[in-house]
C-alpha cells in the first residue's frame, strides 16, 4: 500500500515533471577492481568526504533467467529479512542501516549504507542474512497478499495501466517483460522452496562485492572473509533467456478505459536498444533532443506551444535486455486526438529533418557536463562499475558510450534518427476515461 497519501496531501507541486536521467558517467571518483581468490569480484570506490560506506552486492542470477522466473526467485530474494524471530530486521534497525533487496534482469542485489565505524557489523549482518534459512511463514503469506492488493491498487493509476499495456503490446505472452502486466503476482512457493532458491542465487559464481565511500581495498579485504557462501554452479537452465519483442506486424494498438479520468494518457512505444547496440550512442543523443529536457522537441510541441500537456517525455530504459522505448504524455480527454496528432507530427519531422547542429551541440554539452553531477556521491561510480561487471562489459564501457555519443557527427545521428523514429514503427497505447468515444 502506498504511503504517499500524506506526502501528496502535504507535498509540493514542482514547475515541471522530472525529465528522465541520461546515462550518467564520471571521471571521478574512480572504481578499483580486483578478483578475489574464489573468483568473486571486488569493486571499491574510495571517497573520504563523509564517514559513510555504501555496500552493494550483485549475484548474477536475475530475472532474465527462465529458471529464476519459474522459481519465483525475485520474491524469494526479497523476503530475506523476514526471519521467524524478526531478529535480522531488529539488528539492521539497531545498526542504523536500511537493507534493500531487489532483482533485475541481470542480477539479484543487496544494498545497505552504514557509518564507516559500523562496517564490520554491517557485513556480519549481510553474512547472516544470506545464511538465514528460517523465513517467517506468516510474513511470506502476508507479503504475497499485500503484493496482490498493491497490483490491484496500481490498476487505478493511468500511468501504471499504460506501462502494462505497453508491455502487452510489444512483447509475446510468455516474455519476462510481461511479468506483472497481465495479472497480479502469485507467490505460491513455500518457505523451504524459497530458501533453496535464495541459496542457489547466493552461490552462483561471478558475484560482485561493491563498496563505495570511506573505505579502501586494503581496509576492506580483511572484512570479506566468509562474507559469502561458497560458490556453486547453478542449474543448467539458469542462463539468461530473454527473447525479443513481437514482430512489428503482430503489434496492435491498445486502449484501456478507467473510471473517473479527466485525461487521456498516451504512449507511443517500440522496443528500445540494448546498451551494447552499435547505435546506442545515437539513441542517447536523440532521446535527449526529442524528449529529455525542458525544451525538447516534444515539450515544445505539447507544452510550450499551446499548453496541451504538463509533461512529455521520451524514455529509454537502458539496459542489456530489450525493454520498451516509450514516448508519453497526458492531456485533457477532449484534446486526445490533437495531442496524438502532435506527437505523430513531431516524430515525423524528427525523422525527416533530424537534429540541427545547435541541438547536437547542446546535447554534447549536456553529456559532457553531467560528469560533475554524477561525481557528487561515490554511489554512481559504484553502480556503473557493478553494472559492467554483472553484464561482462569491459570496465569503463558506460563512460565510453557517453564519449562516443559526445563525438558523433550530425550525419551519424541523423542517419540513425531516420531509421529509428519512423512514427509507423511505434505502436500507440491509450488510457482514457471509461465511456469516452473511440477515435
Amino acid at each position: 500500500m502506498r504511503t504517499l497519501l500524506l506526502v501528496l496531501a502535504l507535498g509540493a507541486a514542482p514547475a515541471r515533471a522530472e525529465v528522465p536521467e541520461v546515462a550518467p558517467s564520471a571521471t571521478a571518483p574512480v572504481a578499483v577492481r580486483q578478483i578475489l581468490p574464489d573468483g568473486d569480484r571486488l569493486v571499491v570506490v574510495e571517497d573520504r568526504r563523509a564517514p559513510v560506506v555504501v555496500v552493494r552486492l550483485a549475484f548474477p542470477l536475475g530475472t532474465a533467467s527462465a529458471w529464476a522466473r519459474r522459481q519465483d526467485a525475485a520474491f524469494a530474494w526479497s523476503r530475506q529479512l523476514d526471519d521467524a524471530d524478526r531478529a535480522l530486521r531488529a539488528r539492521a534497525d539497531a545498526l542504523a542501516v536500511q537493507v534493500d533487496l531487489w532483482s533485475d534482469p541481470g542480477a539479484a542485489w543487496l544494498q545497505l549504507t552504514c557509518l564507516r565505524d559500523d562496517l564490520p557489523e554491517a557485513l556480519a549482518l549481510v553474512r547472516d542474512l544470506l545464511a538465514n534459512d528460517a523465513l517467517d511463514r506468516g510474513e511470506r503469506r502476508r507479503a504475497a497478499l499485500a503484493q496482490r492488493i498493491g497490483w490491484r491498487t496500481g490498476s487505478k493509476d493511468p500511468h501504471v495501466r499504460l506501462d502494462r499495456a505497453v508491455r502487452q503490446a510489444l512483447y509475446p505472452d510468455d516474455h519476462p517483460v510481461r511479468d506483472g502486466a497481465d495479472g497480479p503476482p502469485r507467490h505460491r512457493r513455500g518457505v523451504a522452496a524459497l530458501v533453496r532458491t535464495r541459496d542457489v542465487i547466493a552461490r552462483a559464481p561471478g558475484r560482485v562485492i561493491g563498496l563505495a565511500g570511506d573505505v579502501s581495498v586494503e581496509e576492506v579485504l580483511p572484512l570479506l572473509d566468509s562474507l559469502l557462501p561458497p560458490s556453486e554452479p547453478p542449474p543448467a537452465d539458469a542462463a539468461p533467456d530473454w527473447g525479443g519483442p513481437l514482430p512489428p506486424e503482430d503489434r496492435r494498438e491498445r486502449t484501456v478505459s478507467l473510471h473517473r479520468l479527466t485525461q487521456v494518457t498516451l504512449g507511443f512505444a517500440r522496443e528500445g536498444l540494448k546498451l551494447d547496440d552499435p547505435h546506442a550512442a545515437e539513441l542517447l543523443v536523440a532521446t535527449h533532443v526529442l524528449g529529455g529536457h525542458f525544451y525538447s522537441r516534444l515539450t515544445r510541441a505539447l507544452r510550450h506551444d499551446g499548453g496541451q500537456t504538463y509533461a512529455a517525455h521520451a524514455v529509454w530504459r537502458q539496459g542489456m535486455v530489450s525493454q520498451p522505448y516509450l514516448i508519453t504524455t497526458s492531456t485533457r480527454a477532449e484534446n486526445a486526438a490533437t495531442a496524438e496528432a502532435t506527437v505523430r507530427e513531431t516524430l515525423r519531422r524528427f525523422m525527416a529533418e533530424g537534429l540541427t547542429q545547435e541541438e547536437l551541440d547542446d546535447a554534447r554539452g549536456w553529456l559532457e557536463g553531467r560528469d560533475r553531477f554524477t561525481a557528487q556521491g561515490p554511489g554512481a561510480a559504484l553502480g556503473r562499475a557493478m553494472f559492467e561487471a554483472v553484464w561482462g562489459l569491459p570496465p569503463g564501457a558506460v563512460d565510453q558510450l557517453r564519449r562516443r555519443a559526445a563525438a558523433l557527427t550530425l550525419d551519424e545521428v541523423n542517419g540513425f534518427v531516420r531509421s529509428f523514429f519512423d512514427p509507423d514503427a511505434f505502436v500507440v497505447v491509450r488510457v482514457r476515461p471509461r465511456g469516452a468515444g473511440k477515435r
Partner: protein
Amino acid sequence: MLGLIVATALAAEPAVTELDGGRRLLDGELPNGLRVTVLEDPQLPVVATQHWVHVGSAQEGPNERGFAHLFEHLMFGGTENVDAEAYARLHTAHGGYENAWTSFDETVYVSIVPPEVHAEVLAMEADRFQHLAVTAENLANEQRIVTEELRLRTQNDPFGRLAVRALEVALAGHPYGHAVTGTPEDVAGADLDLCRRFYETWYRPDHVHLVVAGPRAAEDVLADVERLYGAMTPSGTLPAQTPPVGTLPARLDLREDLPPVRVTGLAWRLPPTGAPDDATLELLFEALHGGEVDRPAERHVAETRRALHADTVHARLRAGGVFGIYSVSFFAPAKVAFRRLRRTVDEIGRLEWLTDDVLEAARRRLLLRRAQESWYADAVATAIGQAAWHHGDLGAWVDAEARLRAVTREDVVRAWRTWVGEAEAHEVLIRRGRPR
C-alpha cells in the same frame, strides 16, 4: 567553530562560521532585506542555488487557490532582457538542472550548475526577480499547463484525489485546507493584474532567502549577490503568518475507488516547526518508525496479526503537523479495526521499546543521512533553507548533531505523552466506494 566578521556593504556584518572539512558558512542580509546564506564547500563539484520565496498556497486569498503555484510557472516565462528558453538552455548546455516547487509555506527555485557558470546563473536569477515579463499569451498558456498538472496529480490519481479531499475536510477554513495546485476555476480566473500584484507583493528581497552551496568562495558569491540584487526595493511588509492549525474533526470518513480493503487510521496534531521540541520530535519519530523497524506496524501486523498492513507517517509545516498510524484490513468492521489500532497505540505508548540503544540507533541514522546529504549540493541547500524558514534558526542545521545528542530519553517520553499519549486521537476511515 569560529565566528568571524567580514566587512561588506551588507545591512549588518555577516556571520561566518568555520565548519569541518574546510567548509565555511556565511550568513548575512542586504540592506534591502534579502537574506543570503552561502555554504562554501571545496569538496562539492557543483553549485546549488535556491531562492526561498516566503509565499505558498497558505497565503492565497479566496478565489486565488493555486495562484502561488501558477506564479511559479510564470517565473520561467522570460524577462524583459532574455527569452523564456535562455535560462533552461544555460543549464542544459552544461549538464545542469533547474526547477522549482511550491508548497503550503514557500516557493523555492532550484538551480544546479558547474561553478564556472554560476555567476551567469545568478545574473539570470536576479533578472527574473526584477524584470519578469508576463504577457497575456504566456499567462493563458501556463493556465492551460497548470490545469493539466492539476488533472494529472489530483483528478486522475486516486491517492491525489483522496489527499485533496482529506485536506478540504480536515482543514476546512484553514489556509492549508486546499491543494497547492488549486482548482481549475481559480486558476482560470487569474489575470494580469493579479500577476502584477502578486509579484510586487511577494517577490521582493525581504521575502526571499537566497541559499548557495558549492565550491565558490563565499565572499565572491556575496559580492555577486550585492551587485545583482542590491537595487531591489523591499516591500516593507512583514513575512507571511499562517495561523496555527486548530481543531481537527473527530473522524474523517472518505470513499475512493480502491481495492476491497478498509483503511483505518489514528492521527494526532503536531506543533508547528520552529517549536522548542523540534529536535526531540525528530528523534522520537526516527526512533519510532525511521529505521528498518516501524514499531507500531511491527506490533500491529507482524507480532499480533491485527491487520494485513500498517504504516506510520508524520509531517510538519510552519503552522502545524500531523502524526498518524494507519492499518489496512479486509474484513474487520471499522469499529473493530479502530479498537485494534487503539490497543496497538496503547501498547506502543508504554514505551518499553524506547531504550537508550534505540535512541542511539536513531541518532546514528539521522547522522548517516546528514553525512550522505553532504555529498549533494542541492540537498545541503535544501536543508539550510528549511532550517531557516521552518525552524527559524540556521543552528537547526549547523548544530544538528549537538542538538540531537542533547535530547534525553526523558525528553522523548515527555514529547510522546504531550503530543500522542495524552492528546486527542482523530479517526480516519477510508473505504472503497464512489469518491466522497
